[in-house]
C-alpha cells in the first residue's frame, strides 16, 4: 500500500490539503424559485420567467422538488438534515445576475456535516468529511461573441437550482480529489438528484488547495474556480500545488486568492485576491420564509432512496465475489450494476465484471458512448461469457466475437455459428494437427528433446495457427505435452 502523493521540492517533501466545493445542478423540471424550464440547450432566453428576469414586483417561490432532492442527497451522504434553514441574499452586481443578488443559504444551510468514502486503485479507502450542502440559484451567462461591440445576456441558466456540496480539506492529493468527484457524481446519479453531466455544466468544482510540510498545520490556500472535468480538476490541483511549493521554496509566500486554471497552458492564474474580494452583505431573504422540514417528509425521502453505491459495492463483492476494484469501477456508473447483474445471471460474476470493466468500458469509451447506448446488451455479454465457460470458444476468439458484437450488435451465438468459430474439442482432429506440426518441424522437435522445453509453447502456437485459433488451447497443450513427453520416453 502506498500513501497519497506528495510534491518533492528542492527542500524536501510537501503534503497537500484539498477541499472541494462542488456545484451540482439539481435534477428538476423547473427552476429553484420560478416555474421556468431547466432543460439544457434551449435557444437563448427561451426559458426565462418574469421572476428569473427580476422584473419589478416579482417574487420567488421555492420549488419543493429541489428541496426534496437536496434532502435526499444529504441523506445519501449520511449528513445531518437541518429541520430549519434559511435562504439569504448574496448581494453583488453582475449583468448575468438579474436580481443584483443571488438567493443562497449562508448561515443556516439545509444540510450539515456528512461524509463520503472513496476507494483508491491501490486499495486504500478514505473517508472525506462533508461540511455542508446548501441550495442556491445559478446565474445566467454573458455572450460576447455575437457582436464586436456589445455583450449579450442569456438568462436560461438564471435561477436553475444548484446544490453546493462543500468538503472538508481532507483530500491529500489530486488522485483523491479525482476519486472524490467521481464518487460524488456516482452517488448523485444513483439517487437521481443530479445528472452529473460535466460537459453540460451540471457538475462543476472549485478546489481549495494548500501545501504544508508533513504534519504541519494547514498552509494558505488558493481557490481554483470552475473546474468542469475530473481530468482538469486533477491537473489543476497538481499544477497549483507545484506552483505553491515553488513559491515557498523561493522564499516567497502564498497569498490567499481566487485563481483560474488554463488547461491549454496547464497553469493557474490569479483572478482576484482576498483584498478585493466582495462584501456580499448576506442577509435573510425577506421574500421567503425559513424552510421548516417535518420528520415525516424526511422519512418519506429516506424511504425513496435506492441502494447507494457503497451498499451496491459491498453486495457485489459479497454475492458475486468481485474484487473491490472491479466493484468500485462498476458502481461509479449508476447504470453499470444493473447491467452487470443482468449479464452475470447464471455466469461467473468475476469473469463478467472483468469483461465489462476491461473490454466493454474500453470500447464504449473509445466510441464515446455511455453504457445506456451500448450496442452490446447485458444478456448478450452474459451469453458470450457462457460460450467461454462451456468451452465453445476460447478467450482469444471471444475477444474477436466481442469486437464484432460491438460493431454490429449481433448476438455472440450467431457470430460464432456464422463464422464457424466453434472451438475444436475433437481430440482426433487436434492430434492430427499436432502430428502434422511435429512432422513439419523436426528441428524444433530436436530442440525440445535436447531440453529446450520452451519450444512447447511454440508448438501450441503452430497448432492454433493451423486450426485458425479454433482448437481448444487447453486440450492442445495437454495432448502436445503427452505426445512430446511420451515420445521422449519411448
Amino acid at each position: 500500500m502506498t500513501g497519497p502523493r506528495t510534491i518533492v521540492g528542492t527542500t524536501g517533501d510537501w503534503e497537500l490539503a484539498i477541499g472541494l466545493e462542488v456545484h451540482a445542478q439539481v435534477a428538476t423540471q423547473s427552476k429553484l424559485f420560478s416555474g421556468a424550464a431547466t432543460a439544457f440547450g434551449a435557444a437563448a432566453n427561451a426559458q426565462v420567467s418574469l421572476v428569473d428576469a427580476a422584473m419589478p414586483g416579482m417574487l420567488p417561490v421555492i420549488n419543493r422538488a429541489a428541496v426534496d432532492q437536496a434532502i435526499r442527497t444529504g441523506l445519501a451522504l449520511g449528513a445531518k438534515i437541518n429541520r430549519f434553514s434559511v435562504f439569504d441574499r448574496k448581494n453583488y452586481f453582475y449583468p448575468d445576475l438579474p436580481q443584483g443578488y443571488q438567493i443562497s443559504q449562508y448561515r443556516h444551510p439545509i444540510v450539515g456535516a456528512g461524509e463520503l468514502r472513496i476507494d483508491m486503485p491501490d486499495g486504500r479507502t478514505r473517508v472525506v468529511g462533508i461540511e455542508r450542502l446548501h441550495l442556491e440559484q445559478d446565474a445566467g451567462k454573458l455572450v460576447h461573441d455575437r457582436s464586436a461591440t456589445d455583450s449579450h445576456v442569456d438568462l436560461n441558466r438564471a435561477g436553475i437550482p444548484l446544490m453546493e456540496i462543500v468538503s472538508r480539506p481532507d483530500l491529500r492529493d489530486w488522485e483523491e480529489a479525482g476519486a472524490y468527484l467521481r464518487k460524488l457524481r456516482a452517488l448523485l446519479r444513483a439517487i437521481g438528484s443530479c445528472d452529473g453531466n460535466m460537459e453540460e455544466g451540471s457538475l462543476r468544482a472549485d478546489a481549495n488547495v494548500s501545501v504544508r510540510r508533513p504534519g504541519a498545520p494547514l498552509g494558505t490556500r488558493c481557490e481554483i474556480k470552475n473546474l468542469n472535468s475530473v481530468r482538469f480538476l486533477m491537473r489543476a490541483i497538481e499544477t497549483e500545488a507545484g506552483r505553491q511549493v515553488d513559491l515557498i521554496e523561493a522564499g516567497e509566500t502564498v497569498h490567499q486568492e481566487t485563481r483560474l486554471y488554463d488547461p491549454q497552458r496547464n497553469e493557474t492564474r490569479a483572478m482576484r485576491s482576498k483584498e478585493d474580494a466582495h462584501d456580499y452583505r448576506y442577509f435573510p431573504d425577506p421574500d421567503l420564509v425559513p424552510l421548516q422540514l417535518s420528520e415525516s417528509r424526511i422519512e418519506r425521502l429516506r424511504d425513496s432512496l435506492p441502494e447507494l453505491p457503497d451498499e451496491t459495492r459491498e453486495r457485489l463483492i459479497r454475492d458475486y465475489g468481485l474484487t473491490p476494484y472491479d466493484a468500485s469501477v462498476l458502481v461509479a456508473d449508476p447504470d453499470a450494476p444493473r447491467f452487470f447483474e443482468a449479464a452475470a445471471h447464471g455466469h461467473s460474476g468475476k469473469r463478467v465484471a472483468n469483461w465489462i470493466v476491461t473490454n466493454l468500458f474500453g470500447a464504449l469509451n473509445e466510441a464515446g458512448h455511455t453504457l445506456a447506448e451500448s450496442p452490446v446488451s447485458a444478456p448478450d455479454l452474459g451469453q458470450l461469457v457462457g460460450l467461454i465457460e462451456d468451452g465453445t470458444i476460447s478467450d482469444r476468439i471471444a475477444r474477436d466475437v466481442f469486437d464484432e458484437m460491438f460493431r454490429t450488435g449481433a448476438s455472440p451465438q450467431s457470430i460464432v455459428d456464422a463464422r464457424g468459430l466453434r472451438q475444436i474439442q475433437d481430440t482426433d482432429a487436434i492430434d492430427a494437427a499436432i502430428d502434422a506440426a511435429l512432422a513439419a518441424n523436426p528441428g524444433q522437435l530436436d530442440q525440445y528433446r535436447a531440453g529446450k522445453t520452451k519450444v512447447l509453447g511454440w508448438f501450441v502456437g503452430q497448432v492454433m495457427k493451423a486450426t485458425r485459433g479454433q482448437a481448444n488451447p487447453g486440450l492442445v497443450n495437454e495432448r502436445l505435452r503427452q505426445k512430446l513427453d511420451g515420445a521422449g520416453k519411448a
Partner: protein
Amino acid sequence: MPSDLARLGVVDAADRLAAGDCSAVELVEACIAAQEAARNLNAVVADTAERARAAAVHADQRRRRDEARPLEGIPVAVKDIFCTEGVATTACSRILDGFVPEYESTVSARLWDAGAILVGKTNMDEFAMGSSNETSRCGPVRNPWSPVDGPSLVPGGSSGGSAAVVAASAVPAALGTDTGGSIRQPASFCGVVGLKPTYGRCSRWGIIAFASSLDQAGPLTRSVADAALILEHIAGFDPRDSTSADLAVPDLHTALQGDVRGLRVGVPSEYRLDSLPSSISDLWEQGIAWFRDAGAELREVSLPHTRYALPAYYIVAPAEASANLARYDGVRFGARSMGTDPDELYTRTRRDGFGEEVRRRVMIGGYVLSEGYYDAYYLRAQQVRTRIAEDFRHAFQDVDVLLTPTTPSSAFPEGAKTDDPLAMYVNDIFTVPASLAGLPAISVPAGLDEDGLPLGLQLVGRAFDEVTLLQAATVLEAAAGTFRPPAMAA
C-alpha cells in the same frame, strides 16, 4: 350632476349602480372630470381615461346582462407602485422611465376581477421612500387642504397621490402601500381613512418592492365601510407570494355592524410624547372619551420598546431596499445611462436614475449589512423588532385594539423638512411600531387642528383581526364625522 357622483363613496356608488340610479359610464366620467378639475394637485401621474371609459361601457353591459360583480363599475385609483398591465408603472422614479409591465399585480387584478375600474395611477414618493410625496420624480402633490391662496401643504407620503385624490373626491377609493406608515400618515394629513392590513393579508406579487418584510397594500377611502369593502376584495392567499397568509378572508363589510360594548381599548403610555402638540394630545383624549361613551373599556398599556422602533425601522427598511433596488441596473428594463463597462453602466444608470432620498437609503442599507457592521446594526435591529412584536403580543393579552395618534403633526408646508431627513423620518414615529410587528392598523380622520387641518387617530389590532379593528374604527368615525377640504366643500 357629475361632480356629485364623484363624491360618492364605494358602498354608496355600488348601491346607486345596483339600483340603476347611475351608470358606470357616468360615474367614471364624473371621476375623470373631477381628476381633471383637481389637476393642480398633481395627484395623478398616468392618464388612464380611455381605458377607464371602455371598461365602464363594459361594466354597464355586464350589469344589463345581470352579470354585475360586487364592485362592477366602481372607479379606483392605484398608486404607481402597483404594476398595471399595459399602463406605465414607474414608482415615480426616473429609473423606471418607459417601463410598461406585461403583468398585473395580484391586488389590483383582484379589484378588476371584482368589477372595479382603474381611474388614474397616483403620485407617490420615489419607490415609496418619503413621508411628504416630495421625493417623487413627478413632482410634489398638493394637499387638497392647502389654503386656497397659501403655500402648498404636503399630502404626506408615500401614498400622497392616493390620499389627495380621495380627499379631493376625485375617486371613491385608491390603493396605497404602507411600509412604515405610507398609507396611514397621508390619510391623516388629508383627512381620509387609510387601512394597512396585517402583513401577509394581501399579496405583494406585482407590487414594486421597497422593504419586503414590511410592505403591505391597503385602501384609502372616505369611510371605514368603504375601506372594509375594498380590503375584502384585495385580501387573500396568493401562492405567488410566499409571505402571504393562507387564511380565509372574513366578511368584513357586514362585520362592521357589530357592537363595541365591552371592547377593551388600550392606550400605550409610551406614545405620550412631551413634544406632542396639544391639538393632537387633546384629540387623542377626545378619542378615548368617544370609546368610553360607546361602552368600551379603556386601559393604559405599556409598549416598552417603542422608542427603539424608529431607529430599527430605518435600519431594516433601507437594508432590504438596498437589495430590492439592485435590479434597477440598466441592463434589462427602464432607464439606462451607457457606460463602457458594466460598472460604469451601473454607476451612471443608478446615479442618474435614483433621486437623493433613494440613494441615501440604498447607501444606509448597504452600510448596515456590510461585514463588521451587520451584527451591530441589522442584527440588532431585528432583535429590537422581535421585542417590539413581543410588546404588542403582551399588550393584546389585555386589550383588543390600541388607540394612538397617527402622526406627531398635521400636514406641513412643502419644503419644510426636505433638508432634514431625520425630521422627516420622525413623521413615522407612531406608525412604524405596528409595521415592524406586522399588525393591522388604520387611521381614521378624527378632527381638525387649530389651523383647520385634519388629524387622524390610529387604531392597531391583533394580527389578522381586521374585523375588530374596523369595528373600533366605526366608533371614531361615527363620533368624529367626516371631513372635506374647504375648497371642495359647498
